[in-house]
């Protein structure tokens, strides 16, 4: 297949160019199809352990101290808590039915969970494991983003096609912003000025101004030789300095690199098949993509935006998070 051979060439070239190895962090990858989490040493680029977890693991995040992984086991209707030292499942959080994605508050105390089947966002106090609130949102809630100050949470609903802005004190929706079809992910800029919302079927990323709560720009993607229907933006991550955004383009098998000032796509990085989610290493030197259909993850060098290495993980890798240490 032409895609594959071009990809291999890109990898070989970057290896020859002497790309730096990623520093030592642990990446945790949820594998949707075989009910496992792959633990990947980012320095050696090897899978050091495969953890059996609940059914259909998707959304994955980590506590700020790096001690616990939180994992949406969607078909078990629960969130599993995994100890990163022992790799044991040490508890569960009351997620509500079919949890898919969630976001941790900046203070690390509260988890906001999208319940796809019930049109709800569930707010969970992690320490007490209590449900603090259930917030009715649009049809098929999915994307979850939180402002750096923790005051505003954004949920996207896939069939309603909105970004719902929720006040984290009152747990009330304050604004509903229409975006394009099947919004999948919401990511705040580190300075809190904008929220980027991807639309999988619409094929766009809407940049919402957080002050006016209105769409200020729509980013579109064009890749020569690919029909527009194959370009389906899902995961979005913005660098800590706020300068660059990475957008996973699903079956387009590429990650777009976007200048956050001009909103221009600077580059399309060919990774693996059906690229879903993204995570930075804490040193911001590497961003990792999960490539569902090719059962691998790709390390992209943030300095050069070249794919450095691909590593086979479990079946249908979905989400990824990297330990803070």
């Amino acid at each position, binding site marked *: 297949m032409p895609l594959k051979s071009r990809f291999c060439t890109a990898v070989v070239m970057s290896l020859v160019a002497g790309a730096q190895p990623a520093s030592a962090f642990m990446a945790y990858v949820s594998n949707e199809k075989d009910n496992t989490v792959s633990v990947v040493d980012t320095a050696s680029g090897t899978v050091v352990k495969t953890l059996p977890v609940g059914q259909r693991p998707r959304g994955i995040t980590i506590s700020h101290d790096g001690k616990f992984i939180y994992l949406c086991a969607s078909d078990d209707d629960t969130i599993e808590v995994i100890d990163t030292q022992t790799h044991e499942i040490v508890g569960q959080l009351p997620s509500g039915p079919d949890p898919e994605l969630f976001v941790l508050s900046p203070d690390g105390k509260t988890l906001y969970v999208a319940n796809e089947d019930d049109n709800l966002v569930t707010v969970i106090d992690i320490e007490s494991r209590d449900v603090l609130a259930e917030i009715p949102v649009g049809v098929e809630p999915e994307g979850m983003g939180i402002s750096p100050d923790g005051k505003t949470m954004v949920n996207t609903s896939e069939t309603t096609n909105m970004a719902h802005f929720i006040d984290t004190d009152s747990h009330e929706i304050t604004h509903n912003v*229409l975006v394009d079809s099947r919004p999948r992910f919401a990511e705040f800029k580190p300075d809190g000025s904008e929220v980027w919302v991807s639309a999988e079927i619409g094929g766009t990323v809407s940049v919402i101004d957080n002050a006016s709560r209105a*769409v200020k720009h729509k980013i579109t993607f064009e890749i020569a030789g690919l029909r527009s229907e*194959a370009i389906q933006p899902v995961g979005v991550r913005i660098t800590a300095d706020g300068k660059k955004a990475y957008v996973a383009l699903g079956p387009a098998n590429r990650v777009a690199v976007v200048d956050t000032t001009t909103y221009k796509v600077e580059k399309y990085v060919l990774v693996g098949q059906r690229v879903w989610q993204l995570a930075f290493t804490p040193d911001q030197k590497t961003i990792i993509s999960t490539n569902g259909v090719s059962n691998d993850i790709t390390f992209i060098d943030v300095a050069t935006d070249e794919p450095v290495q691909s590593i086979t993980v479990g079946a249908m890798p979905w989400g990824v998070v990297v330990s803070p240490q």
Partner: protein
Amino acid sequence: MSVRPAVAADWGAAIKLAQAQTLTEPAQPRAGPAKPAPVDIHLGYLRAYAPQLALSVLDVPPRDEGVAGANVAIVDNNTTGRFLGQAFSLDVTEVNPDTDVNAAFEALAGKGVTAILADLSPSQLLALADVAAAKGILVFNVGATDDRLREEDCRANLFHTVPTRSMLADGLAQYLIWKQWRRWALVYGSHDRDRLFAEALRRAAERFGGEIVAQKEFVDTGTARRTDSGVVQIQRQMPVFTQGMPEYDVLLVADESEVFGTYVPYRTWQPRPVAGTAGLMPLAWHPASEQWGGTQIQNRFLKSTGRRMLSKDMSAWTAVRIIGEAATRTQSDDTARIAAFIHSPDFSIAAFKGQKLTFRAWNNQLRQPVFIGDGHSVVSTSPQEGFLHQVSELDTLGIDQPETKCVLK
């Protein structure tokens, strides 16, 4: 579980207006104390209903086939509408097959419907479209697969969310060609709709490089569909019916009338797979599809109706969602604005089929992938990889613009 299907104006200005609204302040809906009274958007559902028999009791259409899909979409639209001050409702009216629809239409029009979903015969549908046009009401065909409704008999106010016979036949043919099963034998029923699907399969063979090596009609002599010891006779009858054909890779069946098709698989003279209206079938939706977020709609549908979602349910769900999407994007319940938005080149709808669906501007047919599946699972979806098109690969399914006989008025 049965998976069968039962049987140019100034749009640019309207879309620009719609887009401008989504991008500027006034159209951004606010939740808060100053909520306006909800705008009611009332839809009609007109269906020709009579109890239907099937060769297998598993294939008897559920009483609410189609309507249940529309109801689930009304709930979905209202979840969205809650944030926008829009409330959707549905009025279902049933008529007998092949009877006049005027009175039923007048009753719905009197209730102020914006659009009517129609599950009717082709002649009823055209009669409805014409009286509806006079009152500026849109009609969404959710049941009739007849190509002529999108070709020589097309209407400007008639939209089709259900795929055509030619789209279904092309979807199946692409899969068979991908499998390199190129030699087809065709057996078809003696009723009009069986012949129309057989014709769509012949056309697909010519388009995609299948070879029809033999054809045979199964004449309906009016036997009862369910008799106590029927299977004993069928076991002997079907091998004989399919005897004497040249070597083929697949036996294609065209029996929309439920006279013999279900009896063909596992009883053929030659040990070959069966496809068409029996065996491997092309479908607008599959009750086991979980791809592309399908799990969510399947769960929602099951929870609300207690049964699995069928093709007609999906065609009706999609029609109601299209109207909902247009009302949301235009922030309007005005039929003309809704029609303008649906007609605009920027319109698209997500319907759990892996890509956005759009209307063919030349005949108001919704472009969509076709599921290829048997009674239990999805085998594939078409268009298949490698069938290319200069505009949309979805236009490799069905009659394309250069061949169309439709002139929208």
